[in-house]
């Protein structure tokens, strides 16, 4: 098989078609990029343009791969999702890692507000509360900064396109429960599921009603500016894995399915980044459109079992564990990656990646080992070549 470009390779893997080799896509975000390049984390938080440069530098230093990720943090932090964020250079030391802080920003009454006015209006209404909790952007500057951030995201995607690499976009429509959970704080959110279930459901409906058309419009406008006309969206999902089947079917799955189906119909490729263990709900992903969605696993879900169930239906990405990237040796990372390519890569539909984001304190030689293995260990190339000859 002829050598593919990163874009062709990625497209083929997602659509379950033959590839020249597995696409390699460790989730390198700003934290590892900065630390590995000797840049203080606060520097990229203050200056997102510089953050993109650092990301490109780290990408090259690690040997280059098939998908790029966004820097992931600026002075808006996750405040823009109603989540209190502790940022280096603002609340933490210059080189400390950003962290989320559990705070109850959203109140029970806000469910009613969201039902009436939607999610975006809720976030706007929460600005003063967020500023009071340390958001470094003044209320009046927030809308302009959001716009800037969107523009920066598009500029970053174009920069990666010039380098020849597709990007994964990290901001857009979401599964409602995931955002409620964070901005409400987990403990309060959990009791809401029992005490205010009707409100939670109605607010979820209201969110999707607003977020689906808003997200699709945003992505379509970005897509038009891209040479490849391709945008993929990373959607985080953690909360669903913590729900009992009864609650999963009631609060989570109908909304996730509706969101994913709408995005796929609009030509956006969702990457479902599954934090924690999703073993019990893997079969449900068979209900999502075939060959259009990536299931990105973080090392806690049984990836071999996921493959056996989703083979021929869904591309799987993963799952070199964060602990291995930090504590392991390059040989161990190579062995783990080879095993993934042999087993999960069998028959195609696989992207070799880190489990979660590459941790800030991962050993650079381990990240290189992951990338090298993905690029050079290629048992399937032979299989596909023989198939082509026949």
């Amino acid at each position, binding site marked *: 098989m002829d050598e593919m470009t990163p874009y062709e390779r990625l497209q083929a893997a997602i659509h379950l078609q033959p590839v020249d080799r597995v696409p390699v896509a460790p989730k390198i975000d700003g934290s590892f990029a900065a630390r590995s390049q000797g840049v203080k984390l606060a520097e990229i938080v203050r200056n997102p343009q510089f953050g993109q440069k650092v990301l490109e530098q780290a990408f090259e230093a690690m040997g280059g791969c098939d998908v790029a990720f966004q820097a992931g943090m600026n002075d808006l932090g996750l405040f823009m999702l109603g989540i209190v964020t502790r940022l280096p250079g603002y609340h933490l030391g210059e080189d400390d890692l950003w*962290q989320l802080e559990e705070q109850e920003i959203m109140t029970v009454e806000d469910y009613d507000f969201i039902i009436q006015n939607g999610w975006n209006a809720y976030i706007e209404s929460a600005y003063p509360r967020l500023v009071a909790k340390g958001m470094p952007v003044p209320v009046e500057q927030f809308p302009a900064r959001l716009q800037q951030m969107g523009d920066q995201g598009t500029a970053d995607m174009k920069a990666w396109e010039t380098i020849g690499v597709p990007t994964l976009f990290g901001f857009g429509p979401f599964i409602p429960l995931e955002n409620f959970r964070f901005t409400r704080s987990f403990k309060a959110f959990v009791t809401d*599921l*029992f*005490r205010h279930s009707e409100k939670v459901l109605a607010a979820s409906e209201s969110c999707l009603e607003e977020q689906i058309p808003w997200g699709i419009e945003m992505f379509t406008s970005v897509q038009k500016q891209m040479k490849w006309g391709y945008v993929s969206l990373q959607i985080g999902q953690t909360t669903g894995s913590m729900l009992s089947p009864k609650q999963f079917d009631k609060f989570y799955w109908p909304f996730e399915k509706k969101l994913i189906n709408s995005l796929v119909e609009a030509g956006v490729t969702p990457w479902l980044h599954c934090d924690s263990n999703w073993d*019990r709900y893997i079969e449900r992903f068979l209900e999502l459109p075939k060959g259009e969605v990536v299931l990105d696993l973080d090392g806690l879900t049984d990836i071999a079992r996921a493959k056996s169930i989703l083979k021929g239906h869904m591309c799987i990405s993963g799952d070199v564990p*964060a*602990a291995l990237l930090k*504590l392991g040796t390059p040989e161990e990372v190579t062995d783990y990656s080879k095993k993934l390519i042999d087993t999960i890569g069998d028959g195609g539909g696989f992207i070799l990646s880190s*489990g979660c984001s590459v*941790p800030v304190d991962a050993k650079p030689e381990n990240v290189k080992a992951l990338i090298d293995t993905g690029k050079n260990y290629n048992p399937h190339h032979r299989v596909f070549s023989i198939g082509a000859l026949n």
Partner: protein
Amino acid sequence: MNELTQALTELEEETVLNIVQARMAAGDDPKEIFATCQAGMKQVGQLYEQGEYFLPELMMAGEIFKQVTKLLESRITIESVPVRGKIVFGTVENDIHDIGKDLVVGMLRSAGFEVIDLGIDVPAQKFVEAVQESGARIVGLSGLLTLAFDSMKETVEALETAGLRPGVKVMIGGGSINEKVLAFAGADAYGPDPQAAVNFANQWIAEMEMQNG
């Protein structure tokens, strides 16, 4: 099953609180009411182990149990209820995640353990001091970030330096913890969920009681 135990098992918040208040008004023994609720919490733990209940059900049960405890505290000091054992718990230094820690602390408390919760971003020395002051023989270290691995290792080493390690069992937990991290940190066990922490604690207390004859 007792009506109160059943209501708690089924997470019927209002029913539980109504029954507790009615029994208190009727002059029932508060310790007996407390024990009946503990039986409900045990059922909840079993349903969790069977895969019917998940974290939210555990947390909701913990929330109801906390309210029951508050009601009963006007009549008895909960300290007078036999304690299963003392545990020092916290999220290690450089990590401010508290969800996982709070869940485990809540589960351990409802399982009858006295938990000294040191909070988040806790330096190694604080764990040492808390063990010295409380005489606890179990320590729980929580952390979500890979940065926490180093702090867990430092905490275990600090317990060693203070000469406390031989008498103390250490469990660790958090998103990316695995066998490799366990070996790195030098702890005794790691678990994937709060119930695992309860199981370790029960097992260790039983072993310690055996040793003490």
